[in-house]
């Protein structure tokens, strides 16, 4: 399954298809410790254990921006 993290393509394989796995693959998971949050393409905040679907676009950014 292909998803995008901050505009970069990431390939995930079941069962490893959560937001956490996408961030680990993109090397961005540790950024969460600094308080940044993850959003879907419609601007909704999503949890790290949330399931992703094919083509999902997610964004890691601070809550204020």
């Amino acid at each position, binding site marked *: 399954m292909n998803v995008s993290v901050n505009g970069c393509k990431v390939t995930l*394989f*079941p069962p490893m298809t959560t937001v956490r796995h996408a961030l*680990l693959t993109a090397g961005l998971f540790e950024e969460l410790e600094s308080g940044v*949050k993850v959003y879907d393409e419609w601007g909704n905040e999503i949890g790290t254990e949330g*399931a992703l679907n094919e083509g999902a676009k997610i964004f890691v950014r601070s809550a204020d921006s």
Partner: protein
Amino acid sequence: MRRYTMMMFILVLLAVTASLTGAEQKVITVLHVNDFHGFAEPYKPLGSDTLAGGIATLASEVGKIRAERPVLLLAAGDMIQGNNWANLFQGESVIELMNAMKFDAMVLGNHEFDFGTEILKKRISEAGFPVLGANVAGLGDLVTPYIIRELQGVRIAIIGVVTEDVPFTTHPRNVKGLTFLPVAGVVDRYVRELKGKADVIIVLSHIGFSEDRELARRVNGITAIIGGHSHTRVVDPPVVNNALIVQAWEHAKDLGELDLYMEGRKVVRAEERLIDISPAAGTGDPAVERIVEKYEKKVDALLDEPVGEALVDLDGEHVRSRETNLGDLIADIIRKTAGSDIAIIGGGSIRTSILKGIIRLRNIYAVSPFNNYIVAVRMTGRQVREALEHGVSAVEEGAGRFPQVSGLSFTYTLSAPPGSRVKEVMVAGRQLDPDRRYTVATDDFLAAGGDGYKAFGEAVRASKDYSVVGGVMKGDRLVYGNPGRWERDVIADYIRSGGKISLTAGGRIKEVSGR
């Protein structure tokens, strides 16, 4: 006379309008949660210093709204599996909680299947509310496709559906004999069946927010979709094909309140608000608090349960710099569980030591606190070497990537530059063959690229389409996965079965001089 007639007409018109709008307008409230995952107590989410959630506080909010008007309370799946509060009782604690909160219905989530179908059937039989699964075949009468409830004279149908991907997101044995039908076709069929029988049609879904949008686009006649699975905090819900799509985040951090404004039997407006839940929001519901505390005490008692005995100290302190007996033990358990040739785990996943003496469940949970699960990947010998190279590339920094291994031994030279430190690698008494494929067990953290490991991901990316065939996972490269069972529980079960642990490290990872 004409003036009098006109006035009468206006008065009659006003009276009719008032009766249509004021007198007959009512509000139907549907409260909802999703992806609770047994997070009964408030907790600090990653990167936050503030406590959030708490099911007793959420229950108290439900109680306040119920005191004002009749409501429905729904759960959109993934309720019974997740953290220790749920897992140590295989979800029984959550069902007791939901019964006390008087849930009206719940849809099965993919993680409801993680304890296997027999346990799931037991949990469903304990539930004092209907469990929905319109697209699940094989559970007999235990699940129902939909229910119809009447609230203030309005007939509300609730159809429940779960992701078709369940067989990919749990161990195949957990869904043996079950079939998960395509969601849109099933929902369309029941929406048609419910025509004339219900005034409002709610889909209680566990398929994820983007799939909910797609479902609404494809199926006419849905009033609202109350979703789960993607853990989405939908503050500004979209309307797609006249259906409002809502979801209330995760872990009882929000309670969703969906208000349907009715004129007669027709919905004229739908509104959703999320009520943030935290200890600061107020006091908890006493009855729910008692259940939370009761199971907390049971968790404490279970964590004190002896599961085995360490005849020697098991070293979890030096796992980031050298082979240790605890690293060997855990790597062995992971390799045996996955039935693989080799296991490679990150030393950083082992958080503490176990001292000589009785091993309690608490000790194992402290050693392996993360919600990681075991996967196994088919890799070439070349990729195995790459993984080991990465593992020893930052030994000087004490990085968590340092490998603990099973099924292989290797030497490395610290004075060589990172990327060319690994020297001899032996598997089952033979030199590692760079072109041969080996099955390699690890955890999902490393496999997904955690601690900078790329080799697992590269191996999996080379896989042909992954599939489940005949209830067994088939894939070119990904050969094992059990997402519903945390590594710590696998370790605990293994130690329970063996009893006494006596292990001396040595012979698997050796630092040698030279370049």
